[in-house]
Protein backbone atom coordinates (compact mmCIF):
# COMPACT_ATOMS: atom_id res chain seq x y z
CA UNK A 1 0.00 0.00 0.00
CA UNK A 2 2.69 2.57 0.89
CA UNK A 3 4.51 1.69 -2.36
CA UNK A 4 1.35 2.24 -4.42
CA UNK A 5 0.77 5.53 -2.67
CA UNK A 6 4.37 6.58 -3.32
CA UNK A 7 4.04 5.67 -7.03
CA UNK A 8 0.84 7.64 -7.27
CA UNK A 9 2.50 10.56 -5.49
CA UNK A 10 5.42 10.48 -7.92
CA UNK A 11 3.06 10.61 -10.92
CA UNK A 12 1.09 13.40 -9.27
CA UNK A 13 4.31 15.38 -8.85
CA UNK A 14 5.07 15.02 -12.54
CA UNK A 15 1.81 16.77 -13.34
CA UNK A 16 2.78 19.76 -11.27
CA UNK A 17 6.45 19.64 -12.18
CA UNK A 18 6.49 22.98 -13.97
CA UNK A 19 5.43 24.70 -10.75
CA UNK A 20 8.01 23.02 -8.56
CA UNK A 21 10.59 25.80 -8.57
CA UNK A 22 9.95 28.98 -6.61
CA UNK A 23 8.99 31.89 -8.86
CA UNK A 24 12.03 33.88 -9.99
CA UNK A 25 12.03 37.71 -9.60
CA UNK A 26 11.87 38.26 -13.37
CA UNK A 27 8.48 36.51 -13.39
CA UNK A 28 6.89 38.90 -10.89
CA UNK A 29 3.70 40.59 -12.09
CA UNK A 30 2.88 44.29 -11.91
CA UNK A 31 0.22 45.77 -9.64
CA UNK A 32 -1.85 46.60 -12.72
CA UNK A 33 -1.82 43.00 -13.91
CA UNK A 34 -2.81 41.79 -10.46
CA UNK A 35 -5.61 44.33 -10.20
CA UNK A 36 -6.98 43.30 -13.62
CA UNK A 37 -6.81 39.60 -12.86
CA UNK A 38 -8.44 39.93 -9.45
CA UNK A 39 -11.13 42.27 -10.75
CA UNK A 40 -12.11 39.74 -13.42
CA UNK A 41 -12.05 36.74 -11.13
CA UNK A 42 -14.81 37.83 -8.81
CA UNK A 43 -17.66 38.65 -11.20
CA UNK A 44 -19.16 35.22 -11.78
CA UNK A 45 -22.54 33.62 -12.45
CA UNK A 46 -22.91 32.96 -8.75
CA UNK A 47 -23.07 36.73 -8.05
CA UNK A 48 -26.53 36.70 -9.69
CA UNK A 49 -27.65 34.23 -7.04
CA UNK A 50 -25.85 35.42 -3.89
CA UNK A 51 -27.01 39.05 -3.96
CA UNK A 52 -30.56 37.92 -4.71
CA UNK A 53 -30.50 35.46 -1.81
CA UNK A 54 -29.66 38.25 0.66
CA UNK A 55 -32.96 39.88 -0.32
CA UNK A 56 -34.84 36.59 0.09
CA UNK A 57 -33.20 36.05 3.47
CA UNK A 58 -34.65 39.32 4.72
CA UNK A 59 -31.43 41.29 5.15
CA UNK A 60 -32.05 44.95 6.01
CA UNK A 61 -30.31 47.69 4.02
CA UNK A 62 -28.16 48.79 6.94
CA UNK A 63 -27.06 45.22 7.70
CA UNK A 64 -26.31 44.61 4.03
CA UNK A 65 -24.12 47.67 3.56
CA UNK A 66 -22.22 47.36 6.85
CA UNK A 67 -21.97 43.58 6.54
CA UNK A 68 -20.69 43.61 2.97
CA UNK A 69 -18.24 46.42 3.63
CA UNK A 70 -16.83 44.82 6.78
CA UNK A 71 -16.86 41.28 5.38
CA UNK A 72 -15.08 42.26 2.18
CA UNK A 73 -12.56 44.29 4.19
CA UNK A 74 -11.86 41.19 6.31
CA UNK A 75 -11.48 39.10 3.15
CA UNK A 76 -8.97 41.61 1.76
CA UNK A 77 -7.14 41.55 5.11
CA UNK A 78 -7.06 37.74 4.96
CA UNK A 79 -5.43 37.79 1.53
CA UNK A 80 -3.01 40.52 2.60
CA UNK A 81 -2.03 39.25 6.03
CA UNK A 82 -2.43 35.47 5.73
CA UNK A 83 -2.11 34.31 2.13
CA UNK A 84 0.20 36.83 0.43
CA UNK A 85 2.96 36.83 3.11
CA UNK A 86 3.35 33.02 2.95
CA UNK A 87 3.16 33.07 -0.87
CA UNK A 88 5.79 35.79 -1.23
CA UNK A 89 8.12 34.16 1.30
CA UNK A 90 7.95 30.68 -0.21
CA UNK A 91 7.20 31.56 -3.88
CA UNK A 92 5.49 28.16 -4.11
CA UNK A 93 1.98 26.94 -4.87
CA UNK A 94 -0.03 25.43 -2.04
CA UNK A 95 0.46 22.09 -3.78
CA UNK A 96 4.21 22.09 -3.30
CA UNK A 97 4.21 23.79 0.09
CA UNK A 98 1.57 21.56 1.66
CA UNK A 99 3.35 18.59 0.14
CA UNK A 100 6.32 19.37 2.38
CA UNK A 101 4.02 19.59 5.40
CA UNK A 102 1.35 16.97 4.83
CA UNK A 103 3.19 14.59 2.55
CA UNK A 104 2.20 13.80 -1.05
CA UNK A 105 -0.59 11.42 0.03
CA UNK A 106 -2.40 14.09 2.00
CA UNK A 107 -1.83 16.57 -0.79
CA UNK A 108 -3.48 14.05 -3.14
CA UNK A 109 -6.47 13.79 -0.82
CA UNK A 110 -6.73 17.59 -0.79
CA UNK A 111 -6.56 17.58 -4.60
CA UNK A 112 -9.35 15.05 -5.03
CA UNK A 113 -11.58 16.74 -2.47
CA UNK A 114 -10.95 20.06 -4.18
CA UNK A 115 -11.74 18.46 -7.55
CA UNK A 116 -15.11 17.17 -6.34
CA UNK A 117 -15.94 20.53 -4.77
CA UNK A 118 -14.99 22.28 -8.02
CA UNK A 119 -17.40 19.98 -9.89
CA UNK A 120 -20.25 20.97 -7.59
CA UNK A 121 -19.39 24.65 -8.02
CA UNK A 122 -19.21 24.34 -11.81
CA UNK A 123 -22.51 22.42 -11.69
CA UNK A 124 -24.13 25.33 -9.84
CA UNK A 125 -22.84 27.75 -12.47
CA UNK A 126 -24.25 25.61 -15.27
CA UNK A 127 -27.61 25.49 -13.47
CA UNK A 128 -27.58 29.30 -13.25
CA UNK A 129 -26.82 29.50 -16.98
CA UNK A 130 -29.66 27.07 -17.66
CA UNK A 131 -32.13 29.44 -16.01
CA UNK A 132 -31.19 32.10 -18.60
CA UNK A 133 -31.75 29.78 -21.58
CA UNK A 134 -34.95 28.45 -19.97
CA UNK A 135 -36.26 32.00 -19.55
CA UNK A 136 -35.46 32.79 -23.21
CA UNK A 137 -37.46 29.76 -24.35
CA UNK A 138 -40.22 30.24 -21.80
CA UNK A 139 -39.42 27.03 -19.94
CA UNK A 140 -40.10 26.89 -16.18
CA UNK A 141 -37.08 26.97 -13.85
CA UNK A 142 -37.01 25.19 -10.47
CA UNK A 143 -38.71 26.90 -7.54
CA UNK A 144 -36.94 27.78 -4.31
CA UNK A 145 -38.05 24.62 -2.51
CA UNK A 146 -37.25 22.23 -5.36
CA UNK A 147 -34.09 20.30 -4.62
CA UNK A 148 -34.53 17.79 -7.45
CA UNK A 149 -35.44 18.69 -11.03
CA UNK A 150 -39.18 18.98 -11.26
CA UNK A 151 -39.23 19.46 -15.01
CA UNK A 152 -37.62 17.09 -17.50
CA UNK A 153 -37.20 19.98 -19.95
CA UNK A 154 -35.12 22.02 -17.49
CA UNK A 155 -33.00 19.00 -16.55
CA UNK A 156 -32.42 18.25 -20.25
CA UNK A 157 -31.46 21.88 -20.83
CA UNK A 158 -28.99 21.87 -17.93
CA UNK A 159 -27.58 18.59 -19.25
CA UNK A 160 -27.10 19.97 -22.78
CA UNK A 161 -25.47 23.16 -21.48
CA UNK A 162 -23.20 21.09 -19.24
CA UNK A 163 -22.11 18.93 -22.17
CA UNK A 164 -21.52 22.04 -24.33
CA UNK A 165 -19.42 23.70 -21.59
CA UNK A 166 -17.43 20.48 -21.11
CA UNK A 167 -16.69 20.11 -24.81
CA UNK A 168 -15.57 23.74 -24.96
CA UNK A 169 -13.40 23.33 -21.85
CA UNK A 170 -11.70 20.35 -23.51
CA UNK A 171 -11.27 21.94 -26.92
CA UNK A 172 -10.45 25.49 -26.12
CA UNK A 173 -9.64 26.09 -22.48
CA UNK A 174 -6.93 28.67 -23.19
CA UNK A 175 -8.89 30.60 -25.81
CA UNK A 176 -11.90 30.67 -23.54
CA UNK A 177 -9.75 31.92 -20.67
CA UNK A 178 -8.69 34.84 -22.85
CA UNK A 179 -12.32 35.41 -23.83
CA UNK A 180 -13.17 35.55 -20.11
CA UNK A 181 -10.81 38.52 -19.74
CA UNK A 182 -12.88 40.38 -22.36
CA UNK A 183 -16.11 39.42 -20.62
CA UNK A 184 -15.42 40.52 -17.07
CA UNK A 185 -15.69 44.36 -17.40
CA UNK A 186 -18.77 43.92 -19.58
CA UNK A 187 -20.44 41.60 -17.06
CA UNK A 188 -19.98 44.13 -14.28
CA UNK A 189 -21.37 46.85 -16.58
CA UNK A 190 -24.43 44.68 -17.34
CA UNK A 191 -24.99 44.08 -13.60
CA UNK A 192 -25.04 47.84 -13.03
CA UNK A 193 -27.10 48.53 -16.18
CA UNK A 194 -29.77 45.99 -15.22
CA UNK A 195 -30.03 47.38 -11.70
CA UNK A 196 -30.38 50.98 -12.92
CA UNK A 197 -32.99 50.03 -15.52
CA UNK A 198 -35.34 48.39 -13.01
CA UNK A 199 -35.18 51.18 -10.42
CA UNK A 200 -38.24 53.02 -11.88
CA UNK A 201 -40.27 49.78 -11.58
CA UNK A 202 -39.45 49.78 -7.88
CA UNK A 203 -40.62 53.37 -7.56
CA UNK A 204 -37.33 55.27 -7.55
CA UNK A 205 -37.80 58.84 -8.78
CA UNK A 206 -35.61 60.20 -11.58
CA UNK A 207 -33.70 62.49 -9.19
CA UNK A 208 -32.86 59.49 -6.94
CA UNK A 209 -34.39 61.44 -4.02
CA UNK A 210 -36.26 58.40 -2.66
CA UNK A 211 -33.61 55.78 -3.50
CA UNK A 212 -32.74 55.07 0.13
CA UNK A 213 -36.40 54.81 1.14
CA UNK A 214 -37.19 52.41 -1.74
CA UNK A 215 -34.11 50.34 -0.93
CA UNK A 216 -35.21 50.08 2.71
CA UNK A 217 -38.85 49.32 2.06
CA UNK A 218 -39.03 47.46 -1.25
CA UNK A 219 -35.67 45.71 -1.62
CA UNK A 220 -33.79 45.02 1.62
CA UNK A 221 -36.82 45.46 3.84
CA UNK A 222 -35.78 42.96 6.52
CA UNK A 223 -38.62 40.56 5.66
CA UNK A 224 -37.49 37.04 4.78
CA UNK A 225 -39.36 35.18 2.05
CA UNK A 226 -41.47 32.35 3.56
CA UNK A 227 -39.30 29.25 4.06
CA UNK A 228 -36.04 31.26 4.10
CA UNK A 229 -34.01 31.82 7.23
CA UNK A 230 -33.73 35.44 8.38
CA UNK A 231 -30.21 36.82 7.99
CA UNK A 232 -28.73 39.74 9.89
CA UNK A 233 -25.52 41.75 9.91
CA UNK A 234 -23.33 38.91 11.16
CA UNK A 235 -24.46 36.41 8.54
CA UNK A 236 -23.82 38.93 5.74
CA UNK A 237 -20.45 39.92 7.15
CA UNK A 238 -19.27 36.36 7.69
CA UNK A 239 -20.54 35.27 4.28
CA UNK A 240 -18.66 38.07 2.51
CA UNK A 241 -15.57 37.12 4.51
CA UNK A 242 -15.63 33.35 3.96
CA UNK A 243 -17.02 33.38 0.43
CA UNK A 244 -13.47 32.79 -0.84
CA UNK A 245 -12.22 31.04 2.30
CA UNK A 246 -10.42 28.29 0.39
CA UNK A 247 -8.54 30.97 -1.55
CA UNK A 248 -7.36 33.30 1.23
CA UNK A 249 -7.38 31.53 4.62
CA UNK A 250 -7.23 28.15 2.83
CA UNK A 251 -4.18 29.51 0.93
CA UNK A 252 -5.00 28.15 -2.54
CA UNK A 253 -4.30 31.67 -3.90
CA UNK A 254 -0.64 31.12 -3.04
CA UNK A 255 -0.54 30.02 -6.69
CA UNK A 256 -1.39 33.60 -7.64
CA UNK A 257 0.42 35.65 -5.01
CA UNK A 258 3.73 33.84 -5.45
CA UNK A 259 4.07 36.13 -8.49
CA UNK A 260 3.63 39.27 -6.33
CA UNK A 261 6.76 41.30 -5.57
CA UNK A 262 5.65 41.69 -1.95
CA UNK A 263 2.85 40.80 0.45
CA UNK A 264 1.19 44.21 0.13
CA UNK A 265 -0.13 43.07 -3.25
CA UNK A 266 -2.74 41.21 -1.24
CA UNK A 267 -4.46 44.59 -0.88
CA UNK A 268 -5.22 44.44 -4.61
CA UNK A 269 -7.79 41.74 -3.86
CA UNK A 270 -10.00 44.74 -3.02
CA UNK A 271 -10.21 45.32 -6.80
CA UNK A 272 -12.09 42.02 -7.03
CA UNK A 273 -14.01 42.09 -3.77
CA UNK A 274 -15.65 45.49 -3.87
CA UNK A 275 -16.91 45.46 -7.48
CA UNK A 276 -17.79 41.73 -7.50
CA UNK A 277 -18.88 41.00 -3.95
CA UNK A 278 -20.39 44.35 -3.08
CA UNK A 279 -21.56 46.17 -6.19
CA UNK A 280 -22.66 43.07 -8.15
CA UNK A 281 -24.45 41.61 -5.11
CA UNK A 282 -26.29 44.89 -4.54
CA UNK A 283 -27.27 44.95 -8.25
CA UNK A 284 -28.60 41.39 -8.22
CA UNK A 285 -30.56 42.23 -5.04
CA UNK A 286 -32.24 45.11 -6.89
CA UNK A 287 -33.00 42.85 -9.88
CA UNK A 288 -34.64 40.11 -7.79
CA UNK A 289 -36.79 42.68 -5.98
CA UNK A 290 -38.03 43.85 -9.40
CA UNK A 291 -39.36 40.38 -10.23
CA UNK A 292 -41.20 39.99 -6.92
CA UNK A 293 -38.39 38.00 -5.28
CA UNK A 294 -38.55 35.02 -7.59
CA UNK A 295 -35.24 33.15 -7.43
CA UNK A 296 -34.65 32.82 -11.13
CA UNK A 297 -31.34 34.44 -12.14
CA UNK A 298 -32.02 34.05 -15.86
CA UNK A 299 -35.48 35.56 -15.71
CA UNK A 300 -34.38 38.46 -13.51
CA UNK A 301 -31.50 39.34 -15.87
CA UNK A 302 -33.67 39.09 -18.99
CA UNK A 303 -36.43 41.18 -17.44
CA UNK A 304 -33.89 43.81 -16.47
CA UNK A 305 -31.55 43.73 -19.47
CA UNK A 306 -33.20 41.80 -22.28
CA UNK A 307 -30.94 39.67 -24.49
CA UNK A 308 -27.82 41.31 -23.01
CA UNK A 309 -28.95 40.37 -19.47
CA UNK A 310 -29.63 36.77 -20.47
CA UNK A 311 -26.31 36.61 -22.30
CA UNK A 312 -24.54 37.93 -19.20
CA UNK A 313 -25.94 35.08 -17.09
CA UNK A 314 -25.05 32.50 -19.71
CA UNK A 315 -21.57 33.87 -20.37
CA UNK A 316 -20.87 34.38 -16.65
CA UNK A 317 -21.69 30.70 -16.11
CA UNK A 318 -19.65 29.65 -19.09
CA UNK A 319 -16.50 31.65 -18.38
CA UNK A 320 -16.43 30.69 -14.72
CA UNK A 321 -17.35 27.02 -15.24
CA UNK A 322 -14.53 26.72 -17.80
CA UNK A 323 -11.53 27.17 -15.46
CA UNK A 324 -13.41 25.33 -12.72
CA UNK A 325 -13.85 22.29 -14.98
CA UNK A 326 -10.21 22.53 -16.02
CA UNK A 327 -9.01 22.64 -12.41
CA UNK A 328 -11.28 19.74 -11.48
CA UNK A 329 -9.85 17.77 -14.40
CA UNK A 330 -6.34 18.58 -13.22
CA UNK A 331 -7.21 17.43 -9.71
CA UNK A 332 -8.68 14.16 -11.00
CA UNK A 333 -5.61 13.59 -13.14
CA UNK A 334 -3.69 13.07 -9.90
CA UNK A 335 -5.65 9.86 -9.23
CA UNK A 336 -5.75 8.70 -12.83
CA UNK A 337 -2.12 9.43 -13.80
CA UNK A 338 -2.20 7.49 -17.05
CA UNK A 339 -5.17 9.43 -18.36
CA UNK A 340 -4.68 12.39 -20.66
CA UNK A 341 -5.88 15.85 -19.64
CA UNK A 342 -8.89 15.72 -21.98
CA UNK A 343 -10.12 12.48 -20.44
CA UNK A 344 -9.99 13.81 -16.88
CA UNK A 345 -11.65 17.06 -17.97
CA UNK A 346 -14.33 14.95 -19.65
CA UNK A 347 -14.75 12.95 -16.42
CA UNK A 348 -15.06 16.18 -14.42
CA UNK A 349 -17.49 17.48 -17.04
CA UNK A 350 -19.73 14.42 -16.85
CA UNK A 351 -19.85 14.58 -13.04
CA UNK A 352 -20.50 18.33 -13.22
CA UNK A 353 -23.21 17.96 -15.87
CA UNK A 354 -25.08 15.39 -13.78
CA UNK A 355 -24.81 17.67 -10.73
CA UNK A 356 -25.99 20.64 -12.81
CA UNK A 357 -29.31 18.87 -13.40
CA UNK A 358 -29.95 19.04 -9.66
CA UNK A 359 -31.10 22.55 -8.75
CA UNK A 360 -30.23 21.93 -5.09
CA UNK A 361 -26.69 23.21 -5.59
CA UNK A 362 -27.59 26.64 -6.87
CA UNK A 363 -30.67 26.96 -4.69
CA UNK A 364 -28.55 26.13 -1.61
CA UNK A 365 -25.52 27.98 -2.90
CA UNK A 366 -24.86 29.98 0.27
CA UNK A 367 -24.70 26.83 2.41
CA UNK A 368 -22.58 25.07 -0.20
CA UNK A 369 -20.07 27.94 -0.30
CA UNK A 370 -19.83 27.74 3.50
CA UNK A 371 -19.25 23.97 3.44
CA UNK A 372 -16.71 24.25 0.62
CA UNK A 373 -14.56 26.68 2.59
CA UNK A 374 -15.01 24.74 5.82
CA UNK A 375 -13.78 21.45 4.34
CA UNK A 376 -10.54 22.94 2.97
CA UNK A 377 -9.83 25.49 5.71
CA UNK A 378 -7.90 23.08 8.05
CA UNK A 379 -5.17 22.76 5.40
CA UNK A 380 -4.64 26.53 5.50
CA UNK A 381 -4.52 26.45 9.30
CA UNK A 382 -1.87 23.70 9.36
CA UNK A 383 0.28 25.47 6.78
CA UNK A 384 -0.01 28.71 8.75
CA UNK A 385 0.99 26.92 11.96
CA UNK A 386 3.96 25.22 10.36
CA UNK A 387 5.11 28.40 8.60
CA UNK A 388 4.73 30.98 11.37
CA UNK A 389 4.10 29.30 14.72
CA UNK A 390 6.52 26.37 14.63
CA UNK A 391 9.68 28.51 14.25
CA UNK A 392 8.53 30.74 17.13
CA UNK A 393 8.05 27.71 19.40
CA UNK A 394 11.22 26.00 18.25
CA UNK A 395 9.27 23.14 16.63
CA UNK A 396 10.74 21.41 13.64
CA UNK A 397 9.24 22.39 10.28
CA UNK A 398 8.60 20.03 7.35
CA UNK A 399 9.02 16.84 9.34
CA UNK A 400 6.96 14.88 6.80
CA UNK A 401 9.34 15.91 4.04
CA UNK A 402 12.45 15.08 6.07
CA UNK A 403 11.11 11.66 7.01
CA UNK A 404 9.82 11.11 3.45
CA UNK A 405 6.37 10.34 4.84
CA UNK A 406 3.69 9.78 2.20
CA UNK A 407 1.01 10.85 4.67
CA UNK A 408 1.44 13.11 7.69
CA UNK A 409 -0.97 11.22 9.93
CA UNK A 410 -0.98 13.99 12.54
CA UNK A 411 -2.17 16.45 9.90
CA UNK A 412 -4.82 14.03 8.65
CA UNK A 413 -6.01 13.47 12.24
CA UNK A 414 -6.22 17.23 12.88
CA UNK A 415 -8.09 17.73 9.59
CA UNK A 416 -10.71 15.12 10.53
CA UNK A 417 -10.90 16.33 14.15
CA UNK A 418 -11.41 19.93 12.99
CA UNK A 419 -14.27 18.92 10.72
CA UNK A 420 -15.84 16.90 13.55
CA UNK A 421 -15.39 19.87 15.90
CA UNK A 422 -17.08 22.19 13.40
CA UNK A 423 -19.89 19.70 12.79
CA UNK A 424 -20.81 19.53 16.46
CA UNK A 425 -20.37 23.25 17.19
CA UNK A 426 -23.82 24.53 18.14
CA UNK A 427 -23.58 27.73 16.07
CA UNK A 428 -24.76 28.87 12.63
CA UNK A 429 -22.99 27.20 9.69
CA UNK A 430 -21.58 30.56 8.54
CA UNK A 431 -19.74 31.10 11.83
CA UNK A 432 -18.26 27.63 12.28
CA UNK A 433 -15.10 28.14 10.25
CA UNK A 434 -13.50 30.72 12.58
CA UNK A 435 -13.48 28.61 15.79
CA UNK A 436 -12.66 25.64 13.54
CA UNK A 437 -9.62 27.47 12.16
CA UNK A 438 -8.38 28.37 15.65
CA UNK A 439 -9.00 24.77 16.74
CA UNK A 440 -6.96 23.42 13.81
CA UNK A 441 -4.12 25.86 14.54
CA UNK A 442 -4.01 24.90 18.23
CA UNK A 443 -4.56 21.17 17.70
CA UNK A 444 -1.86 20.82 15.03
CA UNK A 445 0.66 22.86 17.00
CA UNK A 446 -0.10 20.93 20.21
CA UNK A 447 0.07 17.56 18.44
CA UNK A 448 3.44 18.43 16.92
CA UNK A 449 4.74 19.77 20.24
CA UNK A 450 3.73 16.57 22.05
CA UNK A 451 5.25 14.31 19.40
CA UNK A 452 8.42 16.38 18.91
CA UNK A 453 11.61 14.40 18.58
CA UNK A 454 14.63 14.82 20.84
CA UNK A 455 17.04 17.39 19.38
CA UNK A 456 19.77 14.84 18.57
CA UNK A 457 17.42 12.63 16.55
CA UNK A 458 15.98 15.65 14.78
CA UNK A 459 19.44 16.95 13.87
CA UNK A 460 20.56 13.53 12.62
CA UNK A 461 17.44 13.28 10.49
CA UNK A 462 18.00 16.74 9.07
CA UNK A 463 21.45 15.72 7.84
Amino acid at each position, binding site marked *: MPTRLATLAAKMDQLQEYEREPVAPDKFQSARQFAGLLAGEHVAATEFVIGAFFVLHGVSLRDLLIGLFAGNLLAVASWTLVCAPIATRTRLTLYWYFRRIGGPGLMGLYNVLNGVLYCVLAGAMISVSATAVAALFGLPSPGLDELLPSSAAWAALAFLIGIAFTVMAILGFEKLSRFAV*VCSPWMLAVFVACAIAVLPQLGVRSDFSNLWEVAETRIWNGQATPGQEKFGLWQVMFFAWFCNLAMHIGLSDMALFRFAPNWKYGLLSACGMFPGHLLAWICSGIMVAAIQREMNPGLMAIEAGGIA*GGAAVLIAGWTTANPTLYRAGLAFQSITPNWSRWKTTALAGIVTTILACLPVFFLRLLDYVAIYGLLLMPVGAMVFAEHWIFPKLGLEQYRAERRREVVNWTALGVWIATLAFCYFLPIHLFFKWLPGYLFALAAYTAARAVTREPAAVSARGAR
Partner: protein
Amino acid sequence: MVRVLAWVSLLACLGIPLACFWGRLSLPTYKTLLAAASLAWFVFATLAMARRGPGR
Protein backbone atom coordinates in the same frame (compact mmCIF):
# COMPACT_ATOMS: atom_id res chain seq x y z
CA MET B 1 -8.65 53.38 -32.08
CA VAL B 2 -10.18 49.92 -31.58
CA ARG B 3 -9.42 50.17 -27.88
CA VAL B 4 -11.15 53.55 -27.66
CA LEU B 5 -14.19 52.14 -29.44
CA ALA B 6 -14.26 49.24 -26.99
CA TRP B 7 -14.29 51.59 -24.01
CA VAL B 8 -16.92 53.79 -25.66
CA SER B 9 -19.12 50.69 -26.09
CA LEU B 10 -18.65 49.82 -22.42
CA LEU B 11 -19.55 53.35 -21.37
CA ALA B 12 -22.61 53.10 -23.61
CA CYS B 13 -23.63 49.97 -21.67
CA LEU B 14 -23.75 52.19 -18.58
CA GLY B 15 -25.20 55.29 -20.24
CA ILE B 16 -28.12 53.55 -21.97
CA PRO B 17 -29.80 52.34 -18.73
CA LEU B 18 -29.40 55.83 -17.27
CA ALA B 19 -31.27 57.24 -20.29
CA CYS B 20 -33.98 54.64 -19.65
CA PHE B 21 -34.06 55.54 -15.95
CA TRP B 22 -34.56 59.22 -16.78
CA GLY B 23 -37.34 58.34 -19.19
CA ARG B 24 -35.47 59.29 -22.36
CA LEU B 25 -35.70 55.72 -23.70
CA SER B 26 -38.47 53.16 -23.50
CA LEU B 27 -37.69 49.81 -21.89
CA PRO B 28 -37.73 47.85 -25.21
CA THR B 29 -35.46 50.45 -26.88
CA TYR B 30 -33.08 50.34 -23.91
CA LYS B 31 -32.88 46.53 -24.16
CA THR B 32 -32.14 46.67 -27.91
CA LEU B 33 -29.48 49.37 -27.49
CA LEU B 34 -27.89 47.52 -24.56
CA ALA B 35 -27.62 44.40 -26.74
CA ALA B 36 -26.07 46.46 -29.55
CA ALA B 37 -23.56 48.14 -27.20
CA SER B 38 -22.69 44.73 -25.75
CA LEU B 39 -22.07 43.33 -29.20
CA ALA B 40 -19.89 46.34 -30.04
CA TRP B 41 -17.89 45.79 -26.83
CA PHE B 42 -17.23 42.16 -27.72
CA VAL B 43 -16.17 43.00 -31.26
CA PHE B 44 -13.85 45.90 -30.35
CA ALA B 45 -12.48 44.43 -27.12
CA THR B 46 -11.68 41.14 -28.86
CA LEU B 47 -9.97 42.99 -31.69
CA ALA B 48 -8.04 45.13 -29.19
CA MET B 49 -6.94 42.03 -27.32
CA ALA B 50 -5.95 40.27 -30.53
CA ARG B 51 -3.80 43.26 -31.52
CA ARG B 52 -2.16 43.36 -28.12
CA GLY B 53 -1.11 39.72 -28.60
CA PRO B 54 -0.98 36.71 -26.32
CA GLY B 55 2.00 38.01 -24.31
CA ARG B 56 -0.16 39.93 -21.90
